[in-house]
C-alpha cells in the first residue's frame, strides 16, 4: 500500500477521480486535441527554455562565430586549455614521445564509440578506445524507451524520414536523415545477430509502439532497459575482440593534428592523477556524447556523470564548425517526486502505453505524445503562467504522469511486465506505480546539435570522424524519441568503416602536435578571456560546491 505525503494526496486523489472519464474517452478513440504546426511554433517560442534570451549568447570567435549557443557552453568553447596543456603551449615544448600508438583512436566508450570501435576492428584496424570513466559509462546505458526502426509492413524508411524531418521542424540535414532511416533495418538486424534481446512475439515479430511524433508504431524496446541491454551487448562485443584495447579513466583533453592539418591522435589526462598520455593514431573518432551535466539554466539533468561537452571543446579548438546547439532537448517528464531521483527520466514509453500528463486538478492539458519540445513547453506554461502545477513544499512544481492508467487500458500486470526495472526501483522506495501517479517536470536530456558531419561520419578535418550526441544535423532542432539509439549505431558503424579505410590508406601522420591551438590561444588573449575559464571540464563540480 503506497502512501503519498500530505501535500500530494489531495491532488493525486483528483487524478484517480478523473481516470474513469479519461479511460472512457480513450476507449471511444478520442484523444486530447493535437496542436497545429503554427500553434506548436507559437507555444515553443513563448515557453521553451531554448528561447530564453538570457540563457544564450553568440560565439565571439572560432569556426562558428555568431552561432547562438547556451551561455554555459559558450564559456567552455571560449576557454583556455587545461593547465598541463597550457604549459606545453607556453614553453612551445615539443610534445613528449607517444605513450601509445594505434590505427584508430576512439574517444568515448558509449554506444556510438563501441559501435565505431567494433566496426573498425572488424574491418581489420587496430583500435584503442579511451573513455573518461569505464567502458559503457554513458547516456546510452540510461536510455529506457527504445529505438525507432521502420521494419513493419505499414511502415517504410520514407515514412520514418517524414516523421524525423517534421519532428525536427524541418531543420535537419536531409542527407543525414536519409542515411539514418535507410540504415535502420540493417542496424537492427546487426543487433539481433549480436544477441541483443528485444521485446518480441513468439513468432519473432518485433513488438512496436508509438512514440512522440511518430505516425507508425516503430519503437523497439528491451523491456524498460533498452539502453542497458544495448550497451552491455556492445561493450561485451568490444571486449571480445582482441584488436580493441580500452583505456578507462583516460579522458582526452586535446586532439593532435599533424603538419598537413590532419587528425593524428590525442592527449589523454588520466583521472584523478592528472598524468598526461600522448596517443598517436592514423584516424580519430570523436564519440564523446553531450553536455547535460552543464546544467543549462539551472535545470536538473537526466544525463550521466561525464556529460560535460569535452568533445565539442576539443573539436571547436581544432577549427570544426558546430550547428544547432541552441536547441536542447528538455525531456518533458523528469522526476520531481520522489525528490531523491530528481531529474531522472520517466521514459516516454509510459506515455506510449497510455499514461497521460495531468495538472493538479487531474485534467489533461496537452496530448501526451506531442513531440518532446511541444510537451515540454506546454508543461512549463501549465506550471508557470497557468499556475496549474502541483507544488512541493520546497517550491518545485510538477505535473502528474498517470502511470496506473496503463493497467486500466491494457490490463493488470502490464506495468510490471513492461517496466520491470522501474517498477522494482520505485517499489523499493515504497511507491507502487501501479497505484500512484508520479510527479514530473522537464529535465535537460539531450544535445540536439553538435559537430557538423557528413554521411559517413567524416568531419571537415581529414582523419577526424564524429558520431553520436556530439554531432549535429540529424535531429535538427528537436529529436524524436528512439532516434538517438538508432543514430549512435548508424553513424558509429559508418564512422568505424570510413576511419578504418582512411587509416589503411593514409600512412603515418607527420609530426603530430598541438600547433592548431596557437591561433586559438591568440584569439582568446585578444578577447581577454579570463584565465580561470578552463576547458574541457571532464566532470561536474559536485563535491566542491553544494548542489541541489
Amino acid at each position, binding site marked *: 500500500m503506497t502512501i503519498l505525503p500530505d501535500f500530494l494526496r489531495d491532488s493525486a486523489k483528483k487524478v484517480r477521480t478523473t481516470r474513469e472519464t479519461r479511460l472512457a474517452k480513450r476507449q471511444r478513440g478520442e484523444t486530447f486535441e493535437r496542436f497545429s*504546426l503554427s500553434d506548436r511554433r507559437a507555444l515553443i517560442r513563448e515557453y521553451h527554455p531554448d528561447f530564453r534570451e538570457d540563457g544564450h549568447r553568440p560565439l565571439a570567435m572560432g569556426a562558428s562565430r555568431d552561432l547562438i549557443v547556451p551561455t554555459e557552453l559558450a564559456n567552455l568553447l571560449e576557454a583556455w586549455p587545461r593547465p598541463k596543456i597550457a604549459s606545453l603551449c607556453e614553453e612551445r615544448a615539443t610534445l613528449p614521445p607517444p605513450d601509445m600508438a594505434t590505427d584508430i583512436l576512439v574517444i568515448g566508450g558509449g554506444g556510438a564509440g563501441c559501435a565505431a570501435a567494433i566496426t573498425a576492428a572488424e574491418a581489420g584496424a587496430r583500435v584503442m578506445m579511451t573513455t573518461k570513466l*569505464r567502458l559503457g*559509462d554513458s547516456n546510452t*546505458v*540510461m536510455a529506457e524507451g527504445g529505438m525507432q526502426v521502420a*521494419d*513493419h*509492413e*505499414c511502415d*517504410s*524508411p*520514407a*515514412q520514418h524520414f*517524414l516523421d524525423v524531418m*517534421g519532428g525536427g521542424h*524541418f531543420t535537419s540535414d536531409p542527407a543525414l536523415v*536519409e542515411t539514418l532511416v535507410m540504415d535502420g*533495418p540493417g542496424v*537492427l538486424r546487426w543487433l*539481433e*545477430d549480436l*544477441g*541483443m*534481446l528485444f521485446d*518480441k*512475439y513468439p513468432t*519473432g*515479430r518485433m*513488438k*512496436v509502439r*508509438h512514440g512522440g511524433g511518430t*505516425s507508425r*508504431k516503430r519503437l523497439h524496446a528491451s523491456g524498460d*532497459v533498452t*539502453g*542497458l541491454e544495448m550497451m*552491455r551487448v556492445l561493450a*561485451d562485443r568490444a*571486449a*571480445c575482440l*582482441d584488436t580493441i584495447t580500452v583505456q578507462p*579513466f583516460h579522458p582526452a583533453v586535446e586532439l593532435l593534428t599533424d603538419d598537413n592539418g590532419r587528425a593524428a591522435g590525442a592527449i589523454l589526462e588520466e583521472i584523478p592523477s592528472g598524468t598526461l598520455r600522448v596517443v598517436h593514431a592514423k584516424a580519430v573518432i570523436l564519440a564523446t556524447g553531450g553536455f547535460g551535466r552543464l546544467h543549462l*539554466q*539551472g535545470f536538473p539533468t*537526466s544525463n*550521466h*556523470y561525464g556529460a560535460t561537452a569535452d568533445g565539442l571543446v576539443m573539436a571547436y579548438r581544432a577549427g570544426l564548425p558546430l550547428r544547432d546547439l541552441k536547441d536542447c532537448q528538455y525531456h518533458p517528464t523528469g522526476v520531481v517526486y520522489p525528490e*531523491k*531521483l530528481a531529474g*531522472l527520466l520517466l521514459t516516454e514509453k509510459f506515455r506510449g502505453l*497510455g499514461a497521460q500528463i495531468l495538472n493538479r486538478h487531474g485534467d489533461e492539458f496537452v496530448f501526451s505524445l506531442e513531440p518532446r519540445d511541444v510537451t515540454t513547453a506546454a508543461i512549463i506554461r501549465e506550471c508557470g503562467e497557468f499556475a496549474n502545477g502541483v507544488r512541493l513544499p*520546497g517550491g518545485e512544481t510538477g505535473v502528474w504522469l498517470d502511470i496506473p492508467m496503463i493497467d486500466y487500458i491494457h490490463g493488470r500486470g502490464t506495468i510490471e511486465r513492461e517496466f*520491470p*526495472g522501474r517498477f522494482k*526501483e520505485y517499489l*523499493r522506495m515504497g511507491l507502487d506505480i501501479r497505484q500512484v501517479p508520479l510527479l514530473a517536470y522537464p529535465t535537460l536530456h539531450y544535445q540536439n546539435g553538435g559537430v557538423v558531419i557528413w554521411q559517413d561520419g567524416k568531419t571537415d578535418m581529414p582523419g577526424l570522424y564524429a558520431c553520436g550526441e556530439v554531432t549535429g544535423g540529424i535531429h535538427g532542432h528537436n529529436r524524436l524519441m528512439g532516434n538517438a539509439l538508432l543514430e549512435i549505431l548508424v553513424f558509429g558503424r559508418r564512422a568505424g568503416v570510413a576511419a578504418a579505410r582512411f587509416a589503411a590508406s593514409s600512412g603515418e601522420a607527420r609530426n603530430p602536435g598541438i600547433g592548431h591551438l596557437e591561433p586559438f590561444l591568440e584569439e582568446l588573449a585578444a578577447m581577454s578571456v579570463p584565465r580561470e575559464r578552463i576547458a574541457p571540464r571532464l566532470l561536474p563540480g*559536485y*563535491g566542491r560546491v*553544494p548542489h*541541489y
Partner: protein
Amino acid sequence: MARPTKTPASIIIHYDEHRLEVPAGRTILTALEAAGVRLVRGVGCRGGVCGACSVLFRVPSRSHDLSAGLMCQEIVQNGMEILPLPYVPQRKVRHDLELAEDETAAFHVLHLYPEVNNCIMCKECVRVCPMKIDVMGYVGMIKQGDLKAAARESFTCIGCQLCVARCPSSISQPNAALAARRWYGRHMEPKAEHLEKMREKIDSGHYAPIMRRLRLLDAEKFQALYQRREMEPDDAPPGTWLPDDRCML
C-alpha cells in the same frame, strides 16, 4: 529554475576512515558530495542502471548485517559505515558467438563458464543484489541449460558485480548471464522475418526513387505531406493495419 535548498537535519556517516556530517534523506552519493567529497571512480549514470557505484555498508545500530547496494539509490542512515566498491576483479571469457554444428548454445555457455557448477546455493548473491534478481536461480538455470529462463531472470542485471564480490565459489555471475543472454539471443530467439524483408527491400533499391521524390519536394508540399500523415491506430494488431495511401511503402 533554481531549486531552493532546505536545510534538513544532518547525520553522521563513516567513509574511508572519515567521520562525515551529511544531510539526512540523501542518497549516499549526493550525501558524500554535500560533505565535499569529489568522486571520480565509483560514480556513473547516477540513476541506478550502470552499476558503477556499488557499495558495501553496515549500520551498527540497526543490525549486524553487511549490506550492499548502489550509492545513487541507497539513503544514508545515521552511523552508516560505507565502503564503495568501484571495481571487482572478475572472470570474463572472450567468445565470438559462433556455434559448431554438433553443439547447442546452452552447452557452449556452460563450457565458457563451467564454474556455475560450483554454486553451493548459499544465496548470498540473492541477498546482496540491488536489483532483487534471483541470481542463484539463474545460475541454476544456466547449469541446467535453460538459457531462455536465465535470460529472463537476469534481464535487469546492471553488472554492479556485488554478487561476484561475495560469491564463495568464485563465480562471475553477471558475465555468465550476459553470455547466456547473447547466446540465447543469437541462436535460439526467433528472428524477425519482417525485419529481414524490409532490409532486402531497401537493399534492392526499392526506396531510392521514393526518397529522391521526397527530397525534391518543395518545402510547402513536403510540410503538407507531413501534416496529412495517416496515423497507425494505437491498438492495431501487429502487422495488419495498412494506410490508405501506400505511395510511401
